[in-house]
């Protein structure tokens, strides 16, 4: 069973969003990291880059796979997680601590289109 945390928002492409004072902290879920295997690289946007909901903003790579990341919300990148440059395995060890980017949202209402933990659990159950 994949771990799901209450209080976060989830996308169908397995990103999670945590809201901190109007800032969206974005990462990938436990389900996503498990299906990737050992993550060796995270391709992240730079500070000030714009991201749009449901559009690619980067990718995670394992030895034999690559998976694009889709922005669950739109906005401006404030920061990417520099720790992942040296230690991408953080996403495997603790996917909910290993955030990828922080985004200043341009449309906070977009979170209403995401799933809560219960809906995501149900979504996963249908997948598995």
């Amino acid at each position: 069973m994949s771990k799901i945390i209450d209080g976060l928002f989830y996308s169908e492409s397995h990103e999670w969003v945590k809201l901190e004072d109007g800032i969206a902290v974005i990462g990938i879920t436990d389900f996503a990291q498990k299906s990737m295997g050992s993550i060796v690289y995270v391709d992240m946007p730079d500070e000030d880059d714009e991201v749009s909901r449901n559009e690619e903003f980067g990718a995670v790579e394992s030895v034999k796979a690559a998976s694009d990341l889709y922005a669950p919300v739109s906005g401006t990148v404030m920061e990417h997680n520099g720790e992942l440059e040296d230690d991408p395995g953080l996403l495997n060890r603790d996917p909910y601590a290993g955030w990828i980017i922080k985004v200043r949202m341009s449309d906070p209402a977009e979170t209403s289109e995401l799933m809560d933990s219960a809906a995501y659990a149900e979504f996963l159950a249908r997948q598995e």
Partner: protein
Amino acid sequence: MKYYDKLIFGLSKERRIGFSLPENSWKDRADGIPANLKRSSPLDLPQVSEPDAVRHYVNLSDMNFSVDTGFYPLGSCTMKYNPRISEEVASFSGFSGIHPLQPAESMQGVLRIYSELSDWLCALTGMSAFTLNPFAGAHGELTGLMIMRKYHLSGGDTGRTRIIVPDSAHGTNPASAAVCGLEVVQVKSTGEGLIDMESLLPLLDETVAGIMMTNPNTLGLFEKDIHRIEAAVHAAGGLMYYDGANMNALLGKVRPADMGFDIMHLNLHKTFSTPHGGGGPGAGPVGVTENLKHLLPMPAIRKRDGTGEYEIAMPESSVGRISGFMGNFGMLMKAYTYILMLGKRNVRKVGPYAVLAANYVKESLKDRYRLPIPSLCKHETVFDGLAACSGDVTTLDVAKRLLDYGFHAPTIYFPLLFHQSIMIEPTETESKETLDAFIDAMKKIADEALTDPDLLKEAPHNTPVRRPDETLAATHPVLVYQHKP
């Protein structure tokens, strides 16, 4: 094969030399280059003697598996024997000193090989013309797709921007399409591993440039519906592209043009027996039907009317230049020689013998390995992992254990349609004894998977190195030698 732990840099010692060059007797030397245009950083290339260099590279070669040392059951790669006569004639000095821009009159021997090889490839595939410029299969695909696009565009049909690619296709197909600016539309396979007509037909509209197909496909199965597919694609205004990666199954038996294909590439390093060279150079000639001939890339080699002479043309109508010169000529000479050795009669047996070997292996292993599609296969057969094992022995473990038995691993985890794919292509140049030894090894491995799974999980045991840590390599890439202080 034994472990040898050196890099050439470790053999270097100041002032050693391995070259044989005259002293400079000219008035000028490269010091004359203005200071701001000169290299200022030191050049740390190794300094070794010729005997040390030769011994180093021979020792490296000893850590390699090769067709000349053992059997490759490698699906979709056609690792057949590479004739020695091809190597001998390709090194003839009358060819090695030819500059590619020399006047055509001074390289008629080169151009004749080019022209005759094109003619023979036409005869064997039913196409009307071939370019031999593309350097590899993927390069041929790109060239072929450029021809397809230009065909539509030059007819004023600008809306054909999508290409249909089956989900079982080689990874290069969608990648080549993307480089060529085409949008890839994937079409599903049926449970029998063939293109699903029900999924294909609705996709065919005025936005489709064509379809890329491998036949037999990557499951080693002949697309029986080829006539229906061809009729539907052509009716929709699209073109048929044939990925010749699996042509060995059909050589001497079926010609792609007769299946309705308009454009195709061949991998000379597969079907026409030029050596793989550790990953290249290869050659990926592209053939087309009569109505697409004018689009082939330049330079084009032509026979001058009536004179028996050959010329180099730069046709205006062409898709353009896709290579610096005229392709990997050395490889073309080897394929030319192979065809001459085979001749018109033996060539008819290549496909059938390759197919015979694949079906023999398939039937011999189907009790021990899961065979998802049991029908007649062509040049290769695909299993979906072990039929039975204890623990979680995977296809990777089987492949690695095979190395201990002195065989190369098969192609694994491809095609993507199955989770534990093991793809085996035995080719026509392996004897029954070799195939039997391979079958025995595969059966022993299936036994071991039940009795001693750890033996497989930890395999290989007696290769120069054991399983490498690929995660480490990709997380913290070390891509150049770091000088130790």
